[in-house]
């Protein structure tokens, strides 16, 4: 995904702000990347280069860490992040069906962001709410006992709060 100039300069500025005063030890690498992601929502290449430069590491080392761990995103997230739990309990109670419903309605695949950057869709391994399966997280809010029909309901509700703006009409 191509980043805009604005996104690039923001990534660099945020990384520099976070890096200032950080100890240059390798053990600090993951916490720093987590803080960058916490602020930006993702860790783009310009941010990785900043980190590598500061820590005195080859950029590829930073890249290998970012791409190894599932938590790090390389692309900007949507305004609303939908995470579908596909742990054992959720899977057995139809998590895959829920995921397919979201994919169908948003017209994207898991791991992608809608073209208007409104929604991004992700799978999570298990959020530890197995007793309430299947579970969907909208941003950080847990929605228990999800059903395919709730997908439409949630999109509709969010469409309303956006003052009648369009919400990804059908697939």
């Amino acid at each position, binding site marked *: 995904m191509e980043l805009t100039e604005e996104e690039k300069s923001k990534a660099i500025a945020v990384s520099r702000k976070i890096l200032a005063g950080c100890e240059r030890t390798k053990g600090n690498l993951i916490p720093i990347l987590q803080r960058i992601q916490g602020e930006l929502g993702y860790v783009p290449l310009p941010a990785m280069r900043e980190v590598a430069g500061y820590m005195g590491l080859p950029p590829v080392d930073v890249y290998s860490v970012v791409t190894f761990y599932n938590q790090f995103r390389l692309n900007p997230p949507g305004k609303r992040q939908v995470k579908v739990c596909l742990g054992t*309990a959720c899977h057995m109670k139809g998590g895959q069906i829920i995921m397919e419903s979201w994919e169908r309605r948003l017209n994207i695949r898991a791991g992608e962001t809608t073209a208007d950057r409104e929604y991004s869709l992700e799978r999570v391994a*298990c959020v530890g709410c*197995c007793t309430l399966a299947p579970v969907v997280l909208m941003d950080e809010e847990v929605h228990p006992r999800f059903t395919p029909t709730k997908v439409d309901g949630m999109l509709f509700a969010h469409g309303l709060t956006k003052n009648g703006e369009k919400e990804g009409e059908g697939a």
Partner: protein
Amino acid sequence: MSNLNDTVINALGRLKEAALPEWQALKEKTVILVGAATCGRAAGALPVMQTIKDELARQSIDAPVVEVGCMGSCYAEPIVVVLKPGQPGLVYGYVTEGIASRLVLDYVAGDDPCVEFALAALETHEMIPTFADYPRGQIEQKVVLEHCGFIDPENINHYLAAGGYAGLAHALTLPPEELIQEIKASGLRGRGGAGFSTGMKWETCRKQAEQTRYVICNADEGDPGAFMDRNILESNPHLVLEGLCIAACAVGAQKGYFYVRAEYPLAVDRLKKAVAQARDAGLLGSGILDSSFSFDVEIFQGSGAFVCGEETALLASLEGEPGLPRHRPPFPAVAGLWGKPTVINNVKTLSYVPYIMKKGARWFRETGTPDNPGTAIFALAGKVVSTGLAEVPMSTTLRDVIFEVGSGVAEGKNFKAVQIGGPSGGCLPESVLDTAINFDSLNKAGAIMGSGGMVILDEDDCMVEIARFFLDFTQKESCGKCTFCRLGTKHMLDILERITKGKGRPEDLELLTELAEDIKAGSLCNLGKTAPNPILSTLRYFRDEYEAHIHEKRCPALMCKDLIAFYILPEKCERSCDVCVGSCPVEAIYPNEDRIKVIKQDKCVKCNSCLVACPPQYKAIVKLSPPEMVAEKEKVAK
């Protein structure tokens, strides 16, 4: 020595004395506890708590509302406990905002205990049974979970008043060798899954010449279906912290880490608060409880890699590297973090330690069996009535845990299997339900204890699909270091996908078994070594299901999408009803000329919505396998 004894005991005594007034003050008023761990919150505990606070304010009642963790009965969340002075404490389940205000008006303000909403009483009550009166109360034995859901996890004073940190105080007065001896004598085995003797691990670390040592609490609970570590950290973080301090004291570590899964924000938050409070109270830092022992901890958040639950991968992650496991030996107890001796223990293991310190090794051995002493904590999920946590003595049978503690299979369905130990574990059928659960017996049955996640499967669950699900998980989470794990799991997954799509070949089962053996032999860490377990155990106990998929292109449990079709029985469909038409997200259902609903098979995405929507008095929608049966049925109908 006695001097040190007095100093430490006095220091703890002062802390406890300062904590008690707050605790005592709670006993004089009506107190309302709201279970607000992640499970409670997801079920709506926070609005319930707000309703209670608002209603109390409206009635001008001075009653503290305390946010607590989870007592393990997650199925009945949100749970509210009302403690009225002079009355047995009453536990209410499935509390909604409406019930919450009723509780305040009728019971807190009035005298009506609202029996209709009560789950249990904490002491004998004339109208409400206690937890011990239920079948599960006879089997359960709470050690680690004792205070979970009854003390404020964000308040160190509650933990101190309930006897907290006494284990640490005792540990500080013992020579480290004696301390380790006590843990060894207790027979405590690592609850992370492998069941290695905790005392031996500590002893190895202690014996190293290198003086810089570390202790790490492994809270990277990644097994899908396991949530007991999250629950303990959210409900009683000080217990785990105390355990880690004792471990540090035993091995002589100066620094400790909590490695917590990034997916557990509430646990991280509560742990951070606990660490800050412990530091303020002089329970962390230099000169703990006025002794000469100094120790501090740091919280490190994982980044979503399942393999980092493996101890050497966890170390790599702490060192800022991709989480690739290393070769063992040397074991971390010899050369761990930054090459220094390191003890890595699971959350549950550390949670037992303060109790063993306080009550002694002999007390710990009173529960369980000689080789597997103590209790075991299981997370019950899936198709079981009472989902949640269960703490039972080691060697309780699977049947007791599932049918007595878990109250059996949900919705009156038939039990098919129980999946134990997550992606490294296996599926056990009805015939082995009388197996006593411990580290050794489960291995024999083809599963593993693992972290203790138990997912109950019923007649509607396809065992091939379950195996495919776990392989999909391990294949994605394989770190890629060992060829057999990286490529072997991919091959197995391809085969399983083929089978679930009805394209399986007769020789596939042989091939799967062969690959499983190779992956086990050719992988460095337990992720790879145990990855084939779900396949091997399902092949062993449910071979007929594999064969039905391969030879008959049929899914007996009606689960595999490519092998089923949805069909509306014309004789059952009600002409005046069209709920299913509206429920279909892809407009695949239409009424025919007789107003009987029909599914356009080429449009149907098999999402199950119509089957759920069809009113129970008609039950007109069925799943058929193989899908060709629809054409046959339609012919007959005409």
